[in-house]
C-alpha cells in the first residue's frame, strides 16, 4: 500500500501535488512536516473527502527528479515527525516535571551566602577605598583624550 501518492507533478510550473489518507498521520504531524518545506517551497494544504492534499510550488525552477525526491523527503519527514510526536506524548509528563522543577528553582532566587569569612574571604573589601576599583589608583577610568582630561 502506498501511503503517499503523487497526484500531479509538473516541472514546467514547478508544482507537485501529493495526497495521503487522513487516518495515516495526525494533523500535527502533517503541519510539522509541511513546515519543514516552507523555506524552499510554497505549501498549501487542503482536504478532499478522506485525503489530505499537499500542494507544493518550488520557490525556484526544479527538475522532475528533484520533485520526486521532494515527495520522498516529505514522506520521510512525516515518519520522523510522527516518531517525535510519539516520543513527546510518551515523555510529556517527565518533561513537564523537569520544567516545573527548573522554574521553581529559578524563581526561589539565590540565597545570600552566610558562611564565615575565614572559609570564603571577600575578594574586594567594600569598606577599603584603596581596594578593588573604587580608588582607581591605576587611572583606568580617566579619559585618555587631552580635551576630556580633568573633566572627571
Amino acid at each position, binding site marked *: 500500500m502506498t501511503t503517499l501518492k503523487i497526484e500531479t507533478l509538473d516541472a514546467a510550473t514547478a508544482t507537485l501535488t501529493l495526497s495521503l489518507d487522513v487516518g495515516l498521520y495526525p494533523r500535527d504531524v502533517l503541519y510539522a512536516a509541511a513546515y519543514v518545506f516552507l523555506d524552499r517551497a*510554497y505549501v498549501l*494544504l487542503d*482536504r478532499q473527502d478522506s485525503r489530505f492534499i499537499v500542494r507544493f510550488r518550488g520557490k525556484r525552477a526544479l527538475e522532475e527528479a528533484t520533485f520526486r525526491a521532494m515527495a520522498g523527503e516529505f514522506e520521510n519527514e512525516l515518519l520522523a515527525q510522527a516518531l517525535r510526536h510519539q516520543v513527546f506524548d510518551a515523555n510529556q509528563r517527565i518533561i513537564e516535571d523537569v520544567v516545573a522543577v527548573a522554574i521553581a528553582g529559578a524563581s526561589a532566587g539565590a540565597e545570600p551566602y552566610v558562611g564565615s569569612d575565614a572559609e570564603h574571604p571577600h575578594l574586594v573589601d567594600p569598606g577599603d577605598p584603596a581596594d578593588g576599583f573604587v580608588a582607581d589608583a591605576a587611572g583606568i577610568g580617566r579619559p585618555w583624550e587631552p580635551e576630556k582630561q580633568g573633566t572627571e
Partner: protein
Amino acid sequence: MTASAPDAVTVRFHRSLYTEPAIKEAAETFAELASFAISTDAEHYVVELSAISRDVDGDVVAEFCNFALANSARGQRSSHA
C-alpha cells in the same frame, strides 16, 4: 489555490487545517502588500486578495499562504502545550 484576474486572487483554506486567527494574522502581516477580504463557505475560509503590490520580489499570494500555514501550525502546537 485558485487564480483569477492578475490583480485579484482567491485562495481557499480548508477549515479543518487552517484557523481563522492564523489567516487574519497573515493578512495583517501582508496588509501593506495587498487588500484582504475573508469570508467562509461550507468547508473553507475564502480569502480574496486584491490590489496586490507588484513592487516586491517574490510571490505575495504564495508567501501569504505560507504564513497562514505557519501560523496555523504554531497555533495548533501552542494549544497543545
